[in-house]
Structures are given as C-alpha cells and as structure tokens.
C-alpha cells in the first residue's frame, strides 16, 4: 500500500516534467527577441548581444530550462512583460474568483448529476431515463458561453432574479458572493453534469445487474438503500475517475465563463495575457492549472484505495 502510494506520487514527476518542458518551450519559440525589445530601437547589434548575454539568453536550451525549473520550484514564475509585476502576485490577486467558481461548480455538478444518473439507471428505458440522456447530449453540445448568455438573459435581464455580471469577494458576505456565482456555476456545470450523469448511469446499470443487488432485494432492503448504499458505493470508482478527468473541462470552461460574466479571475487574466502576448503570465497560468489537474487526479487515485479495498497495486 505504502509502496503503491510512493510509486504513484513519483509517477507524477515525469508528467510534470513534460508539462514544464512544453511551457518553457512556449517562451523559447515565441516570436520576438526579448533582448532586442529591452535594448530598444537605437541599440547596435553589439548592445543587443551584450544584453542577451547578461540575461543568459545565449546559453544552451537545457541549461536555461534547468535554471527556469529551479526558479519555478522556488516559487518564482517570472515577471509580467506588461505590468512588470511578479506573475505569482498577479495570480494570487485573481485566484479567489476562479477557485470559488470551480469549487461551487464541482459541488453543484456532483449534487445534481449523481442523483440524475442513479435515477436514469433505476428507471432504465422510461421517459425519465430518456430525458436524462437527452439532457446529457444537449449538455455536451451547447457550448459553455451559449448556456451562459442564455441563463444571463433569462434570469438576470428578463426576470431580474440574479445579477447579470460581476463578482463580489467572499469577504463581503456569503450571499453577495453566491448570488454572483450561481449563473456562472450553472453555465460552467452544464457539460460537467452531462458527463457525470452519463458515467453514473452507465456504471449503475452494470452494478445493478449483479447478484448481490438481488440478494439485497431478497432480504428486503429498501429501494433507496439498494440504490445509494449497495450500488452507488460500488459504482464509485469509475464515477470519481470521470469527475477527476472532467476537471480539465472545468478549467477550460472557466476561461470562457469568466469572460461572459465579467468575473475578474484567472480566466480573464489568461485572455488579457494572450491579447497582449504576455508570455510569462500565460506560462504561469498553464503551469498552475496543469499542476492543480495532476494533483487532483493523484489525490483521486490515492482515495481509490479507501473506496475499494480490493485495489492493491
């Protein structure tokens, strides 16, 4: 068990190394010569060469990559070309809205999607099942920003139940914070709910056809306890896996959702950075999100051993 945990943790190192190499290459092959930019228009080729040497840009790729990785490990993500602020500071300023949105969406999706999937599996073949499946196809097909605009139009502009756009910090109170995040979370959650509901239904169908479920029925267990205690527990591993993989959808979708609802989070930071070609910021955001994604999936893998004592690698 301990050996497996250690092995699984060590296995993330090559993965993160590839991510780091990709992210570093972004800056390396990015158009534009930083030395020439710093030197300015008046500089002679010798000046540019001197600045390049002083920045260490003339050294081999692998040396620069190594130094860059060491700086990253020390928590230094570089300095934004545009604002001259450290990237870590910029990320720290913007992380609260994005984390709030993602955590709220995650909770919403799990709370809505799993009962949906269980219900569809229980009522297999009925109109309830078909309704859930139709919703799932729609959830996959209607892009996040379309759902976002639709929700904002109906619930904010027409019905005026919720604010149209913006974000209020959690420190300003729970309700103002939640009020602004409900529509973005539902919009962002639509794909995620579809994904989780579908895998829940599929896994539940498989589990419900097994012998021990019949035994549970025979001994008179109630429908609810069969579905949620006997079956769902054993369907948990694939469902949790998909929830983990789906975090990627959540991260990608957050970038767009924040644009639609004018939420000043990491997504907006990314979009602004692209429009300004602010490579250090793009690098920082991609690294951070990938790290979160790898970490979440690592945690899920390790939690498996709790869910399913049969798993012993």
């Amino acid at each position, binding site marked *: 068990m301990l050996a497996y945990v250690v092995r699984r943790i060590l296995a993330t190192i*090559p*993965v*993160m*190394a*590839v*991510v780091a*190499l*990709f*992210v570093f290459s*972004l800056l390396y*092959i*990015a*158009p534009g010569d930083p030395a020439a930019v710093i030197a300015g228009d008046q500089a002679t080729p010798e000046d540019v060469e001197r600045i390049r040497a002083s920045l260490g840009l003339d050294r081999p790729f692998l040396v620069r990559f190594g130094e860059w990785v060491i700086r990253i490990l020390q928590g230094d993500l570089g300095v934004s070309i545009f604002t001259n602020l450290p990237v870590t500071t910029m990320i720290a300023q913007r992380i609260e809205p994005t984390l709030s949105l993602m955590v709220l969406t995650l909770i919403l999706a799990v709370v809505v999607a799993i009962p949906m999937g269980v219900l569809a599996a229980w009522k297999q073949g009925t109109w309830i099942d078909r309704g859930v499946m139709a919703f799932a*196809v*729609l959830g*996959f*097909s*209607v*892009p*996040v*920003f*379309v759902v976002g*605009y*639709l929700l904002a*139009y109906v619930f904010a*502009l027409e019905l005026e139940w919720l604010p*149209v756009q913006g974000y209020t910090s959690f420190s300003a109170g729970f309700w103002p914070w939640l009020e602004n995040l409900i529509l973005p979370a539902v919009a962002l959650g639509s794909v995620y709910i579809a994904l989780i509901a*579908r895998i829940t*239904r*599929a896994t539940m*169908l*498989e589990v419900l056809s097994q012998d021990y479920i019949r035994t549970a029925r025979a001994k008179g267990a109630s429908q609810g306890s069969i579905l949620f205690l006997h079956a769902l527990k054993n369907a948990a591993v694939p469902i949790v896996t998909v929830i983990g993989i789906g*975090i*990627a*959808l959540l*991260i*990608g*979708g957050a*970038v*767009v959702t924040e*644009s639609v609802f004018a939420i000043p989070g990491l997504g907006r930071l*990314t*979009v602004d*950075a*692209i*429009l300004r*070609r602010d*490579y250090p910021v*793009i690098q920082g*955001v*991609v690294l951070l*999100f*990938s790290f979160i*994604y*790898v970490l979440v*999936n690592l945690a899920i893998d390790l939690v498996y051993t709790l869910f399913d004592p049969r798993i012993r690698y």
Partner: protein
Amino acid sequence: MASAHTAPLGLAAESRPPVAAAPPMPDVLPPVKPRRGLVGFVYRHPTMAIGGFLLLVMIFIAVFAPLLWTVDPTALAPARRTREPSLEHWFGTDMLGRDVYSRVMYGARVSLIVGFAVAILSSVIGLAIGLVSGFIRVADGIIMRIMDGLMSIPPILLAIALMALTRGSVQNVIIAITIAEIPRVSRLVRGVVLSLREQPYVEAAVAAGTRTPMIILRHILPNTLAPITVQATYICASAMIVEAILSFIGAGTPPIIPSWGNIMAEGRALWQVKPYIVFFPALFLSITVLAVNLLGDGLRDALDPRMAKRL
C-alpha cells in the same frame, strides 16, 4: 435435420413419413420484414439519421452560402448598424452594419472546416503514434510519458497557449486544436493495439511468420477503424466548440473572417441590448455540434452493439 427440429414438438417421427411429418412451425415470432432503404435506416438508427440530416443541412449552408440570399458578409454599412431583425436583414445587423444572417451562413464554413480538419488530422497522426507505441516497446515508454504530460494540460488551455505563439488564422487554429487532441487518440489506438496483440488470430499470424507491416495492415488497422471513427466524430464536435471559444476570446480566427465565435465576440459588448447578434451564431453552433454528437452516438451504437444500451 428435420427430425431434430420436430422432436422438441413431441411428434412421433415413426408414425408418418418423415418429410411429410413436419407440421408448419407455430408462429412463435412474427415474420420480420426488414425495412430497407432510407426509411429502414431512419427507423433503425434514429439518432444517426437526425444527426446526419442536420449536419448535411449545415454542409449545404456552408457550400452554398453565396447563393442563399446572402450579401457580402464583410461589407460595412455604418448607417445601418445594429438594426433589429427585419425582412431586409433577417438576423439584423451588427455594430458595423454588417448583415448578421450573411455572416452566420458564411460562418458555417469555418466551423465545419476546423471540425473536419481537426478530426481527420488528429485521427491520422494519433493512429500513427498509437501504432508505433503499441508495437515498439522502446518507444512506448517515452511516447506515453509525453502524451501523459500533454494530456495533463487542459485541452482548451493548450490550444490557447499555442495560439499565443502564432497569429490568428484558420490554419493555425486547426494545428493548435489538433495538437491538443492527438494525445487522446494515441492513447485510444495504443490500448486497442495492445489488446489486439493478445488475440489468438494475431498470435497465429505471428507464429505463421507474417511480417509486422502485414499484421498491422491486415489484422490491426481494420479493428482500430470503428473506435477511431467514433472518436473522430466526438473530436470534430469538440474542435468546433474550441474554435468558437478561441475566436470568442480573441485568440482564434482573425476578425475579418466571419466565424460563429467571431460574430459572438463582436456582439458581446452589446448583448444586453442587442441579444440577437449573439443569439443566432450561438444557435447555429449548438445545432451543428449537436448534429455531430448525435452522429457520434449513433455510430457508436451501430459499431459496438454491446455498448448500445449502456452509455
């Protein structure tokens, strides 16, 4: 054979001549009259039929956009900007007075080209990488580590990061999304290859001295086609969404080209007062993606009947 059939019915075979003895079988099952042709196809695969039909409509729009009562989608007319939908401008006009209907019709071209190109390119490249990985042990470890790394960058972010390196063009959007999709196809193909290599008929071919290229061509490739086709349709759908997202946030196709993402990006500033500029491209995008997803679900059910009733 005749007695084998009649015996379960409990007839004494000796009492009558065997041939004449066979009584008409009871009609346990009503005669199945297979429906043929288009009607039969729609009847058997409703999702594929609906998806295919909607997709054909979109392809028709994309191909014949200039003939569908459109005007030049890039023609500016500042005097007629932000008009509500009317008989003259079916979907209204945008901030620069361009006809939204014409832009939406032409926009179908970008979405479909990006969707199909990414689906085909990533399938072919992913197939090649997956085959190499599945057959060459030495390469497998390295390739799969690289794919794992690329897969741990959320696809939209990966495409965004790549687009930051280049200027916006349809070609660059296709390349960026293709790179983001390749790891998933490679993993799929590798999985199929590894399981196929254990199959008795492949082992038999190896034992019979068949050369590896021939094994790949005759035994492996045909079996990867079904899962790859299904995967390709899903990739097509997701590529169209990613293209729209890239264009929407300003990192996709250049604003001069009318794509659904671009039209929505331009309508964004005004969406609270002029929602139709965002609404129409959003509707067409959703219908197209839905069509491709339905086609994919239908294909999956048709190609893998075991999975049909599950997912």
